[in-house]
């Protein structure tokens, strides 16, 4: 009977305590699932526009950025030593006097970003294309930066 009296209070009994922990664990699981779900974990972002994907093979670096609505001459590209600078302004022209907006999700504004590439590059040999709103750069690595095979001689 004493035991029964103790467990009368909500949240104080043994069974209830574990239920509380269980509920908290489920909440944490749901929270972490919401943060990290998806086929891969969230990509790291430096927080500066535009988001860049940089890849390399043995001869070149490839840099890609998504810049919808921009034309090739609105983007300013600069290469200096190992730094690549991308800047410009995205303008969204107003559509007229008498328009009512239902959704307004696209953003306009200036952007400027400089990124340092991991190896020496040949600044005279940079190829840039703008197709369907995606900027693709092919940057040749300088000869010194290309990987070289060293042959081991046996005596």
């Amino acid at each position: 009977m004493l035991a029964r009296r103790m467990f009368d209070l909500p949240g104080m009994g043994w069974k209830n305590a574990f239920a509380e922990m269980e509920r908290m664990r489920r909440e944490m699981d749901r929270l972490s699932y919401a943060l990290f779900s998806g086929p891969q974990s969230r990509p790291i972002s430096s927080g500066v526009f535009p988001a860049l994907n940089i890849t390399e093979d043995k001869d070149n670096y490839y840099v890609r950025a998504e810049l919808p609505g921009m034309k090739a001459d609105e983007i300013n590209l600069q290469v200096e030593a190992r730094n690549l600078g991308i800047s410009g302004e995205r303008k969204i022209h107003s559509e007229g006097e008498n328009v009512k907006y239902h959704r307004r999700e696209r953003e306009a504004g200036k952007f400027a970003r400089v990124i340092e590439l991991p190896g020496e590059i040949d600044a005279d040999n940079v190829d840039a294309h703008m197709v369907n709103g995606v900027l693709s750069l092919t940057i040749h690595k300088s000869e010194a930066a290309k990987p070289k095979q060293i042959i081991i001689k046996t005596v």
Partner: protein
Amino acid sequence: MAESKELQIKEKQEVASPGEHTRPGLVFTPAVDIFETDREIMLLADIPGVARDDVTIDLRDGILTITGDVKPWEGPDESDVLVEFEIGRYYRQFSLSKVIDQDKIEANLQDGVLRLVLPKAEKAMPKKIAVKAA
């Protein structure tokens, strides 16, 4: 004139319910501007990386579905140095009221921006009623 503000980076929004899509790969929700004039409703969607042939605009039962396929642009020999965004298809659905004249919808894709013009049906346009003197 005020100086234009700086663009902030935005994570690409993945579609909330991945279970509905049977093809593998990521699916994103494109940013969209929708506005209305007297004669039409315009929809502008940012879908970079989608070519003209890879956009599907489907309209049935009053539901407008926009799908854009993106061809992977990386060669097989490339290794990653920095990956800040993922590549995937674009998908978004809207329900259209019956005031749209569905036969006259126009679509235009340029620089990764899709522009859809949805003309309003005749009876939905505001009409000025002239008040005649008695």
